């Protein structure tokens, strides 16, 4: 959910909308914001599942330290979504376990 109105910060500043794809579904994002913010705003809370037990994980620290929010972005696994800005057309996937690296050619 977006914080549209804020008593101290005022109304949500207007920014350009970029579209990203999460597990094949298109969602809007505010230009320049981290992937994690766009996902939470869209109500997506499970970012990955763990290697051994397949347990769900989402953001914990939001400042790039804990790596609980890593996802596969444009084919590259283990990208910290809380500190990686969105880009138009970015393809984001819920990461299963340690993720899969793209095939080396």
């Amino acid at each position: 959910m977006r914080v549209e109105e804020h008593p101290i910060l005022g109304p949500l500043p207007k920014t350009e909308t970029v579209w990203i794809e999460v597990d094949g579904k298109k969602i809007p994002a505010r230009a320049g914001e981290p992937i994690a913010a766009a996902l939470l705003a869209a109500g997506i809370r499970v970012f990955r599942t763990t290697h051994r037990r397949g347990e769900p994980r989402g953001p914990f620290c939001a400042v790039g330290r804990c790596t609980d929010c890593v996802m596969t972005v444009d084919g590259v696994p283990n990208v910290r979504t809380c500190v990686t800005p969105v880009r138009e057309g970015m393809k984001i996937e819920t990461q299963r376990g340690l993720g899969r690296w793209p095939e080396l050619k």
Partner: protein
Amino acid sequence: MAGAEVTEVAVVGGGPAGLSAALAARQAGAKVIVVDENAAPGGQLRKQIHKFFGSKEHHAGRRGFRIAEELVAACREQGVELWTDTLAYGIFDHTLGIVRGGTASTLAARSIVLATGASENALAFPGCTLPGVMGAGAAQTFINLHRVLPGRRALIVGAGNVGLIITYQLLQAGAEVLGVVEAAPRIGGYAVHAAKIRRAGVPIYTRHTVLNAAGHGELEEVTIAALDENGWPIAGSERTFAIDLLCLAVGLTPLTELAWQAGCLFEYCGPLGGHVPLHSEDMETTVPGLFVAGDMAGVEEASTALEEGRLAGLAAAAYAGYRSPNLEEEKAAARERLQALRSGPFGEGRYLAHEEIVRRWLKWRDAR
């Protein structure tokens, strides 16, 4: 690897400590580069929207993000180079290994100030890894910086200042906060913050703890219980809340990796959040020319980080050959302000802890 860069003073971390250090070193005449892995400088001040306390020279009555904006503007005006999107991954003598905009290179300096901050502590209980359980600072980042509410119904763990402030900020952003859970018998934060959230009708459960969190795939409910005088949960006192956000405000740990790698001597210091590098009154570590400031030198507040940064910046510039004309007076004034910030029931423990760290540093120096 791109070309190696050289400067006189390098600062790692563009939060209050790092920017303050950079400004002081620059004003003393040194060429200064600040590296910060984030997209914008300002550190955690950028998400602080409450007003600071204290006296005028400690920015009382001003909001953190405004202080960050002014510091950044002052740095730019004075000619400090601010390298954002630049990660310092290692330190090799007086050279930093960096990745700037995705490209690896190095930055060599005569002196280096580490101002890398701290990270939030976690708390272990069944269900603590469920999505929806996060650091209080993380929730603050999402709300105040990215304007996203990470949950609609929340419970907070920890009634220190961070826990009390996030409670109020969640309310400001439109969330419902069902309570603040605190294991200690009394509230740890300032009475002003506690009064504010009580007026808003949020109960503070002192002498309570989280028993477990549960949910299908993500957080749905949390059970808390009262504690007896030995700290054990009292059977029958359990209470369950249907929530989608649990914020943990249970302290911070200094981010000291670079100081460890550089070979600094450390001391474990509970009141300062964990292992902190020994440092002098000038914030110099046991590695000559390597200085520390802010939360990484012992977890405190933004106001103390600004003063420690100033001390470190002045000393780092002097080490690099730029002695400020009023160096001793300026350092004495910063120390006096620091002491004022470390007084009273909230500050005295930190004052004594820092004194001890400096004593250990002196002992190390005298034994050389």
